[in-house]
């Protein structure tokens, strides 16, 4: 099992910070994005992506320490 997305910086290029993104099930591209998660899902489904992968372009482009 291998996530197809190696470089999320590249995948998220052009998407505003803080946006929720709906990613194609094969992880090849961002299908849709929106300020609200539900809206991103709805847009993706309208474009034929029934079960997109949901992620968010981090609001803060900082390193994580959980």
């Amino acid at each position, binding site marked *: *099992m*291998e*996530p197809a*997305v*190696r*470089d*999320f*910086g590249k995948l998220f290029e052009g998407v505003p910070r*803080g946006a*929720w993104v709906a990613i194609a*099930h094969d*992880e090849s591209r961002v299908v849709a994005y929106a300020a609200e*998660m*539900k809206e991103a*899902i709805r847009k993706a489904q309208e474009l034929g992506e029934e*079960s*997109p*992968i*949901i*992620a*968010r*372009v*981090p*609001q*803060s*482009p*900082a*390193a*994580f*320490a*959980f």
Partner: protein
Amino acid sequence: MARHEIRYSEFNCAPDASFPNGQKVKRPILPIRLVNGGNRLTCYAIVDSGADHCTFPLSFALELGLDPLTRPASEIAGVGSGAVPTFYWTIGIEVPTIATLEIYAGFTSGLEGVGLGLLGQSGFFDRAKVEFDHRSDLFVIEI
């Protein structure tokens, strides 16, 4: 137990005072599917040995049909913030081609800003053997 080798994913961090050229960071990320009855949500989660519990953004709970108004809140703490309310439910987690687990997972507004889940000690590390091999750009899950 089956052994699954997975490559790290890269994220960009913006330039700041300590890293004037910005930085690329590697994170051990998995695509997973959260399941509550007929409701499903596919997302990413960080395999996070520092997390006590498996925890997800609160909006994921709403998408799964889980209502925080029906649950008492617990508190969890992380770097740079005080404790944040967290709501727990038992849900299913499908890690494609690896495993399906039933776990007691937390959902908190504290993860809204990152939009990722955390696969932590209780629920994930207590069921899977995990090896981190950053130098080889791999992490390994045996479950």
